[in-house]
């Protein structure tokens, strides 16, 4: 097949493809570092700038690429892929895009290797530079920092696109025909940025705070599991010698502060956002869970998710008269959109207990469905009242989180039919909530006084009734007044 190709041409072609693959990886990873890239043009050729483009070589990236290639070249059936994924500070990760450098069998025998192929590969690299700024992951990578980081992973062999979710899009960067096949560069990127929650709630160690160093993988390190990526935020480790001469110290992580709100605040509106699935923070949940679990022993019974999209939790109070026990409730508030479903089990609402303060000996008073004894009860779903317009029930999109507690309310969520049995109680202590005179907490108080009963005189039925009565009794009253008219006149005279 390549008998027409001279040995020198073949050697050149192999070299071109090898360096093209390495430069492709550099361009992709550098585009996801989270910062603007700037390289200088140089009119005098230095001899080391492949394809006449000034593309820095990050040594770690080159090392990873060479490791993945393991001496082979991209060929037919052997593609080189760079997978870009996002990992939140809580440990959730999501594949964002996969760049594939492939070779197919279509050969272009007449093309000149050292000249045309080389120039076309150069144009293809320029196209890659342009396209890497256009896919959605670019904007995400520019905002990486405390809340999430972007990782990359290079692999060789078959292309795997299943991690990109449904409906991923593909953009072809370009093709270059060579005498041994056609080099194709393309990118498949996710458009469904809803977080996948088909993972278990992991009991990971509490995250104290994201230190970027946690993610820096020194070269040749084997600590990382094989399928985990490398961070796209290169920082030269201090212990290394000054071998990284080519890398500027401008490669710092962009530390924009970011709230833990649902994704609709993070991404541009065009990115599809599924309200049901939001960022899960299992670790954050775990933290709170671990604290609350020390006190009390309340059994939590998760109710059936009405639409399979949200999880509501109820609490059954088994020990109403326990003293010295503090009972808390686990809020699995669904931030963002919350639909009021009339089919919410009323019995679950009626099972809500009144929160009892510490060292209270009084038994629980009457439980009414309307006095939901929940902290932040205003945010709890109310299946009884049809309040479609109530902003408490349908909060506007992604309300900003003002406190960690609220953040945990709004940002917990799970998709699909997640039936979690391993809930643990969380003890909520809103400020100023203890009142021994009235065993009512702030949330209940607020709720009750927000809905005062209607004035009796204003209710329509009673007023119409009294009107009829008045009309009937008028003639009788007139007769009485006429009889006593003398008395009334005397009274009036007295006043004058």
């Amino acid at each position, binding site marked *: 097949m390549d008998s027409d190709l001279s040995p020198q041409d073949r050697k050149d072609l192999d070299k071109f493809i090898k360096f093209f693959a390495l430069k492709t990886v550099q361009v992709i990873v550098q585009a996801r570092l989270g910062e*603007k*890239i*700037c*390289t*200088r*043009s*140089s*009119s*005098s*050729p*230095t001899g080391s*700038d492949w394809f*006449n*483009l*000034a593309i820095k070589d990050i040594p770690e990236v080159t090392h990873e690429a060479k490791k993945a290639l393991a001496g082979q070249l991209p060929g037919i059936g052997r593609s080189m892929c760079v997978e870009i994924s996002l990992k939140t500070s809580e440990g959730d990760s999501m594949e964002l895009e996969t760049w594939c450098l492939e070779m197919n069998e279509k050969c272009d025998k007449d093309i000149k290797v050292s*000249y045309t192929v080389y120039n*076309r590969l*150069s*144009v*293809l690299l*320029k*196209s890659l*530079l*342009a*396209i890497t*700024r*256009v896919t959605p992951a*670019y*904007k995400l990578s*520019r905002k990486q920092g405390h809340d999430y980081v972007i990782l990359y992973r290079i692999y060789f062999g078959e292309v795997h696109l299943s991690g990109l979710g449904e409906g991923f899009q593909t*953009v*072809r*960067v*370009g*093709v*270059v*025909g060579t005498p041994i096949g056609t080099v194709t560069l393309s990118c498949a990127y996710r458009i469904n940025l809803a977080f996948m929650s088909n993972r278990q709630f992991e009991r990971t160690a509490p995250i104290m705070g994201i230190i970027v160093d946690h993610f820096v993988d020194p070269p040749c390190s084997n600590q990382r599991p094989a399928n985990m990526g490398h961070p796209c935020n290169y920082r030269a480790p201090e212990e290394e010698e000054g071998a990284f001469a080519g890398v500027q110290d401008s490669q710092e992580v962009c530390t924009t502060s970011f709230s833990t709100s649902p994704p609709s605040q993070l991404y*541009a*509106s*065009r990115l599809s956002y599924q309200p049901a699935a939001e960022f899960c923070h299992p670790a954050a949940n775990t933290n709170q869970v671990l604290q609350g679990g020390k006190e009390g022993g309340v059994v939590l019974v998760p109710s059936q998710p009405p639409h399979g999209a949200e999880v509501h939790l109820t609490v059954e109070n088994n020990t109403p008269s326990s003293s010295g026990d503090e009972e808390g409730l686990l809020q699995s508030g669904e931030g963002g959109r919350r639909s009021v479903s009339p089919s919410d089990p009323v019995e679950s609402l009626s099972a809500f207990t009144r929160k009892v303060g510490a060292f209270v000996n009084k038994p629980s008073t009457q439980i009414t469905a309307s006095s939901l004894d929940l902290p932040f009860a205003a945010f709890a779903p109310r299946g009884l009242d049809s309040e479609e317009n109530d902003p408490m029930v349908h909060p506007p999109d992604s309300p900003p989180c003002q406190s960690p507690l609220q953040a945990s309310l709004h940002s917990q969520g799970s998709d699909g039919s997640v039936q979690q049995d391993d809930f643990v109680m969380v003890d909520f202590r809103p400020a100023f909530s203890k009142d021994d005179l009235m065993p009512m907490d702030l949330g209940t108080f607020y709720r009750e006084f927000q809905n005062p009963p209607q004035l009796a005189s204003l209710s329509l039925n009673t007023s119409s009734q009294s009107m009829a009565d008045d009309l009937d009794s008028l003639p009788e009253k007139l007769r009485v007044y006429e009889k006593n008219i003398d008395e009334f006149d005397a009274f009036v005279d007295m006043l004058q």
Partner: protein
Amino acid sequence: MNCRSEVLEVTVEARQVEEAMLALLHTILLHRSTGKFHYKKEGTYSIGTVGTQDIDCDFIDFSFVRVTSEELDRVIRKAVSEFKDALSNSGSDGVGQISLEFYQKKKSRWPFSDECIPWEVWSIKVNVVNLANEQERQICREKVGEKLGEKVINVVEVINRHEYLPKMPTQSEVDNVFDTSLKDVQPYLYKITYQITDSLGTSVSTTMRRLIKDTLAL
């Protein structure tokens, strides 16, 4: 040889015109520029290195890559700025078109002047809209960003068809193919022209044809 012609159309707000044009023109020029040629003996030449830099737009949710060359950037900015001024002077709902034309010079015998033969023309049609409130502007920011992304993909698609490109010239011919006036990069010979139509869709009486970069002396 037929001239390849591509048309891109964008709808932007008045303040986004400049950045949108810069983004598209620079993306095209990135692909149509090489390093400086250095001719050696025996007819061989070496090519300099082209640097690139990321540019963030202020009025559009978009970033693009351009060649690192201040001179080239100045020239393009000047052309775009004139286009923008012409657009804004024409009326509130102006429609305009800016064209980037790559051409080759063909030397003719005296007394005829050199011919300019275009081999690729990119026309960017611009519709300027006025928006009423800040919310619409915010949506416009994002939408225009998306649209520009699509246009970049279109540009890349066309360029990667690897259709006609002028042959690499010898040293004596290099000025007929490339613009060698810049000191750090060498784009193919190009010129930028523009045309404004007012909101009625008719050409302005004097079709303003500004030759920003034209090595042809008339």
